[in-house]
Structures are given as structure tokens and as C-alpha cells.
């Protein structure tokens, strides 16, 4: 109980610190007085409230969503290398987004891209599950992973095709694929947070079932888990989180893979705590990565996806090394 409380205190403190840094540091020095006195400096207040604040919030939402979805997918698939993109949901979201840019679609104004992206994500989820069911009625995880890989690579080639054929939108598409939380504003946040909330809730409701499923679907079944229903819920919840995150920010890599691992090593495998702690850590990490992305060569900005991978890859290598070492020592 003590350790658990400690975990939440530390994680919350890190998140609050990340938010504070994210809001207070930026390309433009902003007097924080405008937080409570917006009239003091209109430009500063505009920058803080309408540009910096929403991107910090969005970075938090996206990072948290990806990390929580990653934690759930790794648990469900019993695969430490699984991430929110394993099922190809992100490829669906990407195809939706890139198609919007490629064809210059504008059906829903500035909401067009996230709407199409979400639609792409959901369509792929349904296709993957539908195809898996057609292949194997018991919906084995291996089948789902394999189907995800098949759909993912097909959609990947579709993406490459659009990139190859595109002209002036190339930079936009590449920029979107690299991932960024810049200039989304509050309206994007208002649009995605209900999805993220629903996705996170669905996963949180399956926290104990995820614990049981770590011992295999068969054992989970014996423990009284309605495996099929829960699998749907977890895949659905994770995909909604992933889809909405990708829809607003592009494919930001490594957060969904590395954060659950770090959280697991620090605070244990119990999903009742792993899920919320991963959510908070993912939020912290992406807020900080975005802070780096927009300040390191200020005033020029880097895509945040570049920073997460840049930090994420070595961290992941370190964890991998540590786990291998641990394994090697155990077997020695």
C-alpha cells in the first residue's frame, strides 16, 4: 500500500512538473502573470492560452492515450514488443489523414482530417477483427496480430503510394506522419477528449481482466473472465485511444511502447495501477518531448515524433539490455 501510494505521488508530481515546465517555457518568454491577468499583455496571453496551453494539454492527452493503449495491448497480447500501432489501427488512421491531405478533402472544414483519420482507424479495427474471426472463430491473439501486420503493411504501401504520387502536399504529409501536437488548438481537444475518455474508461474497466489474461486466455477463462467480451473491450478501447491520438497528432512513435515498460519496471505489472500510471507517465513524457521539440532549435520547431523516437530508442535499448542481463543472470 505504501509503495503504491508512493508510486502515485511520484507520478503525479512528475506530471505536474511536466505541465508546469510545458506551460512556462517556450520560444517566446511569456510573463506568467497573464495566467490570472490576461489583459496585462494581449500577445502573451494569446500565446499562452491559445497556443501553448492547448498543445501542452493535447500532448498530455495524446501521450497518455498512447501509453495506456500500449500497456493494455502489451498485456493482452502478452507481447512486450506490442504497441498501440501493432494492430494496424494507426495505419488506418494515417491513411485516412494522408488521404485527406492528398485529395485535399474538406468535407468537415478543419475537422476533416481528424474525422477521416478516426474513421480510418475504426474501419481498420473492424476489418482486422472481422478478418481474424473469419480465419479463426476463437479470435486467437496470434491471428489478430498477424492480421494486424498484414493490414498494416498493405495500408503502409497505400501510404507510400500516396506519398510517391503527391507533389506540393508532400511536406504536409511527411510532417503529419512524423507526428506533432503543434497548432491543433482547443477545438481539436474538444473533439477528441470524449473518445479518449471512452477508450480509457473501457481499458480501465478491464484492468483486472488484463491481469488475469497475463496468465493466458485459458487461465483467464478459468478464473471466470469472459475472455471474448473482454478482448473486444480491450481491443476496442485501445484502438479508440490510438485512433484518436493518431487522428490529432500523427503517428508519434515509442511513447506507447516505452512508457508501459518503464512504468512496469518501476511500479510492477498489476494493471489496476499500470494503466493509470502509464497514462500519467505517457502524458509527462510527451509534454516534455514536445517542449524539447519546440525549444531546442527555437524558433524553428521539430516534429515531436522525431524527439520521442530519439529519446525512446535508447531508453528501449537500455530496458532490453537490462532485462536480458537479468535473464542471463537468472539462468547462469
Amino acid at each position, binding site marked *: 500500500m505504501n509503495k503504491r501510494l508512493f508510486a502515485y505521488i511520484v507520478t503525479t508530481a512528475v506530471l505536474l512538473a511536466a505541465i508546469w515546465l510545458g506551460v512556462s517555457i517556450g520560444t517566446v518568454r511569456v510573463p506568467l502573470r497573464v495566467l490570472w491577468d490576461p489583459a496585462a499583455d494581449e500577445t502573451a496571453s494569446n500565446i499562452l492560452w491559445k497556443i501553448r496551453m492547448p498543445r501542452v494539454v493535447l500532448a498530455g492527452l495524446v501521450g497518455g492515450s498512447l501509453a495506456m493503449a500500449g500497456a493494455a495491448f*502489451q*498485456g493482452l497480447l*502478452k*507481447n*512486450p514488443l506490442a504497441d498501440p500501432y501493432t494492430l494496424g489501427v494507426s495505419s488506418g488512421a494515417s491513411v485516412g489523414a494522408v488521404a485527406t491531405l492528398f485529395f485535399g478533402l474538406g468535407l468537415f472544414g478543419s475537422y476533416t482530417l481528424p474525422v477521416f483519420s478516426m474513421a480510418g482507424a475504426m474501419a481498420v479495427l473492424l476489418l482486422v477483427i472481422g478478418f481474424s474471426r473469419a480465419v479463426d472463430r476463437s479470435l486467437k491473439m496470434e491471428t489478430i496480430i498477424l492480421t494486424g501486420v498484414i493490414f498494416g503493411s498493405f495500408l503502409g504501401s497505400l501510404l507510400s503510394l500516396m506519398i510517391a504520387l503527391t507533389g506540393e502536399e508532400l511536406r504536409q504529409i511527411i510532417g503529419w506522419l512524423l507526428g506533432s501536437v503543434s497548432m491543433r488548438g482547443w477545438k481539436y481537444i474538444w473533439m477528441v477528449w470524449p473518445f479518449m475518455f471512452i477508450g480509457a474508461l473501457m481499458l480501465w*474497466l478491464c484492468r*483486472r481482466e488484463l*491481469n*488475469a489474461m*497475463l*496468465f*493466458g486466455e*485459458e*487461465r483467464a*477463462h*478459468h*478464473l*471466470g*473472465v*469472459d475472455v471474448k467480451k473482454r478482448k473486444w473491450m480491450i481491443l476496442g478501447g485501445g484502438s479508440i485511444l490510438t485512433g484518436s491520438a493518431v487522428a490529432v497528432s500523427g503517428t508519434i512513435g515509442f511513447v506507447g511502447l516505452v512508457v508501459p515498460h518503464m512504468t*512496469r519496471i518501476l511500479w*510492477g*505489472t*498489476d494493471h489496476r495501477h499500470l494503466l493509470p500510471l502509464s497514462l500519467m507517465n505517457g502524458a509527462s513524457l510527451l509534454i516534455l518531448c514536445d517542449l524539447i521539440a519546440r525549444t531546442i532549435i527555437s524558433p524553428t520547431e521539430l516534429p515531436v515524433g522525431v524527439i520521442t523516437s530519439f529519446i525512446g530508442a535508447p531508453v528501449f535499448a537500455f530496458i532490453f539490455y537490462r532485462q536480458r542481463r537479468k535473464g542471463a543472470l*537468472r539462468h547462469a
Partner: protein
Amino acid sequence: MLEVRELTGGYGDSPVVRSVSFEVGKGEMLGILGPNGSGKSTLLKMLSGLLPADSGTVTVAGKTVREYSRKEFARQVAVLPQLQADTFSHSVFETVALGRYPHQSGLFSAWSERDERAVADAMDKMGVTRYRDTQIEFMSGGERQRVFVAQALAQEAPVLLLDEPTNHLDIAHQQQLLDTIRLQATENGLTVVSVFHDINLASLYCDRLLLLDRGEVAAIGTPDAVVDEAKINAVYSARVKAGMHPEIPKPQITLLPGEGPPERKRAVKKEDIKVSGQFVHLDAEVPVKAISSAVHQAGAGWFRHFVNRHVDAGYRSDDATAEMRDWLSGNGFPLSQTAAMMTAAMTEDAVIGEYGTPDAPVVVCVTAGVGNAVDASIGAGREMYAGTINTWVIVNGHLTDEALIQGMVTATEAKTKAMHAEEVLDPLTGTVATGTSTDSLLIAATQTGVRYPYAGTVTELGGAIGRGVYECTVRAIRKYRVRKSAAERDGQ
């Protein structure tokens, strides 16, 4: 508690399990046996609701499996599948606590006092309480399996289904695990159905056994009824020998390898018996089957060395068996391959003779001293001395168990006859003695060559044994008397 009616099902079109019916009562332990692919695990999966049945019903506590929700069913039936590797690790407590899943409901599903107690109880029963915070990935297979049993016990379900629970465990862990489960059945009325790979373990621990053959019930009943040589041979297509456990009345089987026991190149002859002042020793070169009342390795068994050791008449030991073991290993005899007895008589006076056919004779060796001769009809209430008439009968032939015992009877009768003929009297009663107070007898057979189904007194073999033992005993008694009178003369 658990009732199965005409259960049929499996994977795909052709059912693996075909119209299986049985019942298990509260507190009963049923073992499911059968060769690989006979449908044991499939049957268990159908019982646990993992695999839907094509037809037939499984009823638990009066309701069929289909009438239960997943959680309700898990409150009735706990299942322990085979050991498997896990990717991520939980602590022992977290693992066992998962067993409470079916008892928790609602959005926040608070952890109750009862949950805590059930988990503590389960960990206690399986002896894993001290590992509470250990990660299970760091535990050995046996310990881990105990944790999983604790998880199943924490479910507090009245029925426990097990799939080869002792797979990959060493014998100590097998024993601990099954002892605990057996105790739960006996003391707490837990109903246990377990698939077993090992027929002997199943026979030892289960009240009843169910033998599956290609998905159908080949036999069901008590271990005595099911562990039957003919049935096991037929169902498993394996050559086995069934017999009783040496300590408890449960049948056990042993495999008969394709090659029989190593053949002796030549018959055991009287020259093979070496006599010295300390002991008489026969090295049979390869193990032979023997039944004896020896001090070391009494009873039936296969032995290569036979020793008759001389001890003083005043020999006393609190634990003669242990003392004998020490002496044997001190003299370089392999303990497991040696049957040994002791005598106060002088071993150099051993009388050795060959009887019957010269190629495959019956070899008899007797050492005798009749100082404490006893009339068996009124023999009780005397002190024990080291054995004084020790008789060995080694038969170059194949004897049935029946023949071995008959041989013992024949040899004993012949010995008694010799006592009569030599008019050895019981010094206490003055009547004719039938033997001495601590006589030993050993009958050995090479189990090669001629087959002897019987060894009663009128058979050819019985005749040889009877005559041999009689003659050798008479000569041994005479040698003893000669030595004794010489000693008395020297004493005077």
C-alpha cells in the same frame, strides 16, 4: 457434485470425446487416465467450459455449465491447467489474489476482508506465504505450480479440475502437491478431477479412476479395478506388470522393457559359494530373483550378492538392520544388490550341495547351530538370538511366485524333518524341536531356463529342494555337534 452425461465433443468434425458419463461426489478425487490422444485434456476442457460440447451435459451442483455465467461458474469450478511460461511477472500475492476475481463485482470491486482471508488461507495451505512478495518468474517450476494451486484454492470453488498437475515437477514436489490436494479433498470436501499421465500417482492419490481409450470410457472404478494388467496393456498398448505398492494397498504398475533381465551365461554351481570364517558369499554375477527373511533386503527382490554373516552368539544391536548395512558397505557389498542374513553358527561349517539335474542344479547351502532349538508349537516368550539355521536354496530355473512360496514351504518342511531325524530337542520343553528361534530362509531363482510353475513336495523341483535341504541340514547339524563336543572337551 459433478455429473457428466453422454458427453461428446472435440475440435472439428470428428469428436475426440465420445459419450462419456460419470459422476464425482463431494470430497471425492477422480483421476482421468489414458494414453496420449485419448481425449483426457479435451474432456477436462469440456468440463471446464473452455470447449463447448457437441452433445451431452456437464452438471455442477445441480446446474448445467450453460446455465452459469462465467463468474458464477468460476465460483463453482476452479481449474489448474498445465504449467506454462509467462511473459510478464506478477508477485505471488498478486497471482493468488487473482483467484478472487469471480467473487468481485461492481465498478470498483473493493477488496474485502473475506478476499484477504481466502488468499491468506490459500497461500498458507500451499506453503507459499513466505514468498508473498516474490515475483513468480524467479520461482522454480514446483514452487510456481504451488502458487497456481493456491490461486485455484483462493477461488473457493467446491470443484477443482487439474490437468497433469505434477508435469515437470520432481518427485518431492509431486508428493507435496498431491498430498495437499488430497488433504483438501479429505478434510474440506473439495471435489477433485485430475488428468494424470502417471498411472501410479493416480492410483496412489485417487479414490476412483477413469480410463479413457480413444475418447471412450474403457474402465471406471476404484484403482484396484482400473489398474489392471490386462486393461492397461490393452489401452496403452504397453507391456506392464501390475502389483501392489509395497507399503499401502494401492495397485502400481511397472513397465516391462523389451529386453528381459540380463541372461546368466551359465548355471549357479556350488563352487560359486565362497566360505570363510566371517561369512558365506554367493556372487550370482547378474541379479537373480529372491525371496527371503534376510536381515538386509528381506522380502522379494532381485539381488546379485547373497551373504550369510557370522556373528558372536552374544551379538546384540539396537538396530541390527542398520548395523548390517554398515558392515556390508564396510566389506564392499553394494547395498541395493545384496541380501544378507546373520548366524551365530560357524560359517566355515556351511554345508553346500547340488541336487537335481547337473546342468541346472538346485544349490543348497545351510549353516546350523541348534543351541536355541525351539518346538514351534510352544515356542513363544523367549529371547531372540542371531539366526542359527540359515538355509539358501538357489534354483537354476524360472519360478512363478507360486513356485517360490511353495519352495519355501518345502524347504521348511525338509528342515523340520531333519531336526526330527537328528532328534534335536527343545532344551526348555524337552520336546523335539522344529527349528531354532531365529532361522532364516532364502529361495532364489535365476528366472532363466526351465519354467517351474510349482515347487510342492511332489514336483520334481520340490523333490530336489526337499532332499537337498534335508541332507544339508542333517550334515550341518552333525558338524555343529562335532564342533560343540570338541569345544566342550577343550573347555573341560
